[in-house]
Structure formats: C-alpha cells, structure tokens
C-alpha cells in the first residue's frame, strides 16, 4: 500500500543522484553566475562571499550578532550568508558543510561548543576556506583569528563587583544561577567568578543551579528557591545572563527580597531598565553587534592579504547605575 509513495521517493532520489553524477562529468557545463571556485574574481569585495554560522537564531543575542555581521559586510561591499545552528552541535556542523559545498571564500563560525565544532573547522580546512571564530573559541583545526570577549574576565568582573557590594555585611550567602550545563559561556563565566570567590571565603554560595539560559527555567527555579531560603538570608543573586537575572529579580522582589543584590551578564534592555530603577546592581555588557562587525572586518582583512592578530578581544564593560547613561544596551 505504500508502494506509490516509495516509488515517488525512489524516483525523485534516482533523479537527484543521477543528475548529480551527470553534472560531475562535465563540471563546466552550467555557466553559473559567479559561483565557480576556480578563476577567482577580481580582488575587490565584489563576488567574494563570506559564510557565517551562529549557534542559534532563537536568542536575541545572536539575532543582534547576525545584524552586526550583515551590516558590516554590506558596508564593506561583501556578500554574506548567515546561517542558524539550530542550537544543536551536529546541525551546526551540517550548516557549515552546506555553506562549504555552496562555495564561500571565508567562514565566520560562532561555535555552539568548543570541542564539538572541531569537525566543522576541519572541513573548512580541507576545503581551504579560512576560518574566523567569533565569541567562542574552537579546540582544534586551523583558525585565522578569534574575535570575541573573554567570558572568564566577565566572570571575574562579576565576582569583584559582588565582593565590593558585600563588604559592608562582611560577605554572606548568595544564589548562583548558571546557564547551560557544560556550555562554554557557563564554564568560562563560572571559572572567572570562582577565581574571585576563592579569595573571599566570607561569600558562600548557598544554591548553585543550572537554568539552560532560559527565562522560564530561571523563574521556576527561583520560585522554589524563595521557598527554600527565608527573606533576608540571601545577600545576592549572581546570574550568567540577564535573561536569568531579570526573572529571578521579579520573583525575589515579589517575595519582598528588596535588599538582595542582583548581578547579570550581557547587558540587555531589560537589565538596563532594572539597573536604572535601582533594582539590579550590575551587568556585564558585551555588544554582539560590535563583535559581529569586528569579525567581518577581520575576515575582510584576511581576504585582502592583510595580517590579522591571532586574537581580537572585544571589550566587556561593567554597567552600574553610575555609567549606565554612557552605554547603550546590547540588544
């Protein structure tokens, strides 16, 4: 009974593969506009294509980063194709391979995972396409340069802000809401924070939870935690993202925890607003638009034969009520 559907599939795939073979015999047959790899076009930006793959489009940070990449490429006159890693290591590799097959002159990769995306970099190396890693590093393959912030430094800035804020009460208990367990920003930001906390034994983490960087998870965990700890015992809530800080803050304030310090990361609009209102102590601003632009600049420099430093570190800014008006939110 499924014969017909199978027949259709079989036919379509037979066509698919035979056509593929047909093409392979005479590769010069279709005069494809501007896509054939040999006979590289004039060294101006025109005709050169940059491929970029971000970890996901479902997070505003990466949506802003995509904007940064596209705007800068347009400004410099390069074609750019930004793709969605769909929050999955394997799917992100798939996207890289598809772009390589399509034919790109440069790859900008923001890996979802530093280890899992090594095969993607190796595939680009095999295809002789230079790679720029953005925002997160990759632990293998050949990479031209890394463009991004130092997450560990951000964690240290959080720790120092926390230590300063808790000086008057001589430390105390804190809640730590981390991102996705095992992900690179989670590990790096945690390393940075822990390195500061080691010097401050008076600050004790009472609860340390993973939230997958998602608002709903943060809110539900925080709802449980306000039941677990009585009002006034928790001195501060440190989070690895503003997406966790703002929901946690809402729950805490709803329980009357008004003197609990809240520290976030990323610097989004909601966090800026909470800092302005004095509900939140600080956040660490990293600008995805600027990062994206810097990655495109580095890629273009490399394509034009200019030397590019092996690390392009974009700055992280500690945002408090004092310097809030001097900066714009990241997204």
């Amino acid at each position, binding site marked *: 009974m499924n014969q017909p559907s199978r027949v259709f599939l079989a036919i379509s795939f037979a066509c698919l593969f035979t056509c593929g073979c047909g093409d392979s015999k005479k590769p010069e047959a279709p005069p494809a506009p501007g896509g054939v790899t040999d006979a590289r076009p004039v060294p101006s930006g025109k005709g050169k294509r940059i491929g970029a793959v971000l970890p996901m*489009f479902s997070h505003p940070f990466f949506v802003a980063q995509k904007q940064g990449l596209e705007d800068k490429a347009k400004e410099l006159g390069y074609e750019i194709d930004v793709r*969605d890693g769909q929050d999955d290591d394997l799917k992100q590799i798939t996207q890289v391979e598809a772009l390589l097959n399509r034919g790109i002159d440069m790859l900008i990769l923001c890996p979802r*995972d530093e280890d*899992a995306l090594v095969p993607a970099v190796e595939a680009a190396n095999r295809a002789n396409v230079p790679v720029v890693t953005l925002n997160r590093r990759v632990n293998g393959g050949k990479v031209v340069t890394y463009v991004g912030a130092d997450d560990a430094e951000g964690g240290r800035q959080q720790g120092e802000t926390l230590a300063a804020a808790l000086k008057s009460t001589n430390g105390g208990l804190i809640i730590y809401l981390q991102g996705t367990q095992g992900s690179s920003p989670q590990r790096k930001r945690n390393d940075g924070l822990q390195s500061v906390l080691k010097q401050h034994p008076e600050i004790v983490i009472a609860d340390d939870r993973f939230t997958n960087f998602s608002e709903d998870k943060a809110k539900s965990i925080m709802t449980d935690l306000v039941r677990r700890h009585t009002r006034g015992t928790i001195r501060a809530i440190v989070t690895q993202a503003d997406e966790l800080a703002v929901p946690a803050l809402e729950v805490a304030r709803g329980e009357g925890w008004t003197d609990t310090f809240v520290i976030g990361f990323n610097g989004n609009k909601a966090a800026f607003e909470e800092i302005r209102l004095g509900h939140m102590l600080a956040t660490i601003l990293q600008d995805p638009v600027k990062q994206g632009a810097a990655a495109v600049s580095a890629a273009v420099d490399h394509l034009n034969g200019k030397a590019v430093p092996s690390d392009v570190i974009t700055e992280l800014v500690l945002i408090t009520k004092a310097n809030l008006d001097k900066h714009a939110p990241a997204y």
Partner: protein
Amino acid sequence: MSSGSTPEPSKRIPWRTLFVRLPQLALAVLALVLMLRTERFFTPATLGSILTLASIVGVLAAGQTFALIGGGFDLSQGAALALTAACTATLAKQGVHPVLCACAALAVGLLLGAINGGFVAIVRTNPFVTTLSTLLVYRGAAFLLLAGRPITGIRSFEPLNEGITIAGTFLPYRGFVFLATAAIAWIILRQTVFGQYVYATGGNAEAARLAGVRTTRVKILSFALSGLAAGLASILLLSWIRLAKPDTGEGYELDSIAACVVGGVSLQGGSGSVLGAAAGCLLLQSLATLITMSGFPDEYRKLVTGAVILVFAAADALARRSERA
C-alpha cells in the same frame, strides 16, 4: 486492516492513487526544480555530504521503523543515543579497545531498547508514555554519568570517519554504514519470518497472537532493535564529533520519526518500509541542505520543514482513505 504483506488487488495503472498522491508528487517535483536552480547543489560533493550528514538520523530511522511497524513508538532514541555515547566515551577514555567499546555501545543500546519493549509488551504501558518516561530517565542518567561535563577527544572510532575518494569526492564510511543498516533492516523485515511477525503484530496484535505469533517477544525485540540503532548511531556520532555531551542528540527521536512519516511508515503500525524511511531521511536532509545552499532565509526553516512533513502525512492519509473506500 492495512497490512503491507497483502498483495495489491489489481495491476492496472493506479490513476486514482496517482491523483491522490499529487501533493507528494508536486512537492518532489518542486524540490527537484529548486535543487536544479540551486548553484552547486547537484555536485557529487554536496550529494555525498548529504548522505553522510543523514547517516546518524538515518540509522535511528531504520530502528524507529521496527518500533513503528511493530505497533510501537520510540521517543527515547535521542536520549538513548546520548546515554550510550556517554557510556562508550567513558570506556574509551579508560583505554578499552575500540572493538570492545563498539560492542558495549551496541549492547547498551540493545538493553535500553529492551527496557522500553519490556514495559510496553509485558507491563503493557502505552508506548508513548513509556518512551517519554525513559527519554527523561536516559537523558537524566547521561547527565549524571557525565556530571554535566563533556568527555572530549575520543579517538577510538576515528577509522569510521575516514572514507574513500571516488572520482575526487570524499565519502566517509559513515554514509556506507547508513546504507548497509538500511539494507540489513530491509532484509530482516521483508525476507525473514521475524519480519513478517513484526508486520503481523503491528497490524493486528490479537489476530497475530491467535495465529501463533509470540507477540510479546516480537514487541520486545522491535523496541530492542530501535535501541540497537541508537547504539550504532552513537558510534557514528563519536567517530564524527569525538565527544559525548549530556545534550547530544536532543530531539533526534523527532527527526527519526519525521523521516519515517515522510517515508510512508504508518504510525498505526503494520505497514511501511525501511527503504521509505531511509529515503525520507535523505529527503529531509536534502531539504535542510537546500535551504542553506539556496540562500533561503533560515528563519523559515522550521516552518518549511514542518509543512513538508505535514504534506507527506496528509497525502498518505488521503491515499489510505481512498484505498479503503
């Protein structure tokens, strides 16, 4: 009711069937036109990479076919993949021989599948509920085993990631493993007595039991084979990305079910073919690659993929309805 083993009533040209299958046909033609218009899509390199990229979900889909045809449903495949990968990676890191690691992966997969089968066939819990629960159990166990940290740098299965170069096109062995799995699964389902029992059990378990089929055993085995596929998929995965993470393969069970649906495997049990599932998997991967290579915006990816699956499912349902009338 709908049994794949009954002979077709007539050999006339099935115009009516063709008409009913029009949406699928139109979609296949449309996809073909888009592929032809996409620069550099029909190159051996691109097609080879589609085959390789489809291999992991393809192996899962081959296993899923057994569960579905046997009247079951396996939602735990992605989690079973993560758990077997975690176990295998732990062994590999301790210097266990790669062949033993591979055997362990297959054994763990088989066991995890058999647990599903045992609950469904003996305890008689609903397959959906059973595998939804074991999805959480297996995923949770993988988290605990790895303590949230990835195990990286696993080189045990690297030979599988190598391949052969045919006419300048590099084809990793993983693609061949997928094709071989599909072929073996097809032989088991179509050419063995056990295969006939799986169809019979999925089509009408009570009738099969009365006819002397040991349906409990068949059910357990069909789920166990789905787990075995997850074990094999975990080997392919480790050979490729060389690390095990707690969130590896999240949602792959849905990809494998989607491949089966597109390939015409019935969710009611008792009908379908593993070759259909393999073709469905290749079609969905082609679609994914096509979306990227044609420059079609990624924001539409989910919507388009879902719509394609729905069209195939709807066409299949309509065809069945008209055949029954």
